[in-house]
């Protein structure tokens, strides 16, 4: 298990597409986690845009209702790509309760199914590799206080098992945030997720450069 640090860039400047190492790492068929005090949705959106612009089929399960389509289009354009193409390669579903998110993940077919026959104009060199799954802001709906903790824990365990199933066939990248400081009991959910993944990155925000990062092992 790796524990690496990546500092979050300025909010509107996208991660350079030339960060080949990171993209290469993302393309591995395994379960990867990006986490921090705030959910790293922007960073993940940037990554998935780059990948979608290159022709990968990307599935996105959004648990935080923050999929910024304009950001994706702007970034795709800056990558000298047709923004339509990038957006067409993205298949998205929004979940507003942890039950919905769990259902999405549970019913997703391993390998994420073949794509419907969309004509994909001017794709960069065919669809390289398997479909990828991004889960944005995975834990917010599990932190919802109206869901009893034991139900949330049980559901999360089940969901993680399905994430692993999906990861066996293709890359699965999950973004999550820590619970709010005053809600101590929900940390167990983040712990469960951290323990289960194959690789994890902690994102620090640029506002606190001097802070010691959390080393878990």
């Amino acid at each position, binding site marked *: 298990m790796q524990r690496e640090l990546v500092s979050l860039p300025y909010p*509107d400047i996208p991660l350079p597409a030339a960060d080949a190492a990171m993209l290469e790492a993302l393309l591995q068929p395994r379960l990867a986690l990006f986490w921090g005090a705030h959910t790293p949705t922007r960073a993940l959106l940037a990554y998935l845009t780059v990948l979608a612009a290159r022709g990968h089929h990307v599935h996105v399960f*959004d648990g935080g*209702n*923050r*999929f*910024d*389509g*304009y950001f994706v*289009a*702007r970034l795709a*354009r800056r990558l000298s790509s047709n*923004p*339509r193409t990038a*957006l067409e390669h993205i298949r998205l579903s*929004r979940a*507003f309760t942890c039950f919905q998110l769990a259902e999405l993940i549970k019913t997703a077919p391993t390998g994420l199914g073949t794509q419907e026959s969309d004509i994909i104009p001017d794709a960069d060199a065919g669809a390289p590799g398997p479909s990828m799954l991004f889960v944005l802001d995975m834990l917010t709906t599990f932190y919802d206080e109206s869901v009893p903790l034991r139900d949330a824990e049980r559901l999360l365990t089940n969901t993680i098992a399905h994430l692993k199933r999906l990861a066996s066939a293709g890359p699965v990248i999950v973004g999550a945030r820590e619970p709010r400081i005053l809600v101590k009991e929900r940390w167990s959910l983040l712990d469960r997720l951290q323990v289960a993944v194959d690789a994890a990155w902690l994102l620090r925000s640029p506002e606190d450069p001097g802070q010691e990062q959390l080393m878990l092992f």
Partner: protein
Amino acid sequence: MGRTLPSITQAFLQEQQSLARFRRALRQEDQRALDDLLGSSRQHLAAAAYASHLLPFEVMLLAMLVEQHKQVLHLQQEIEVIQSTLRDIPADDGDRKREQEG
């Protein structure tokens, strides 16, 4: 339901913010002109939202052009009014006398 995409107002504001460096390096009077242009684009937020254009900045530019064109038309109108008013004003006595004499 809380919406997913940023609102069109937020999208416009983001575009505005991305122009911050450009604006900073302009002269003061040019900054004001830019602010006017950016402000004028806000007249058409609803149409921009409805358009669902992938790149809101393109629609923003178009909105600015629409407002500018309206101002041009308005000024044209005013000029025509002034011109026809001037044409209708009789020449003063001194000139007429000179005309008659010369």
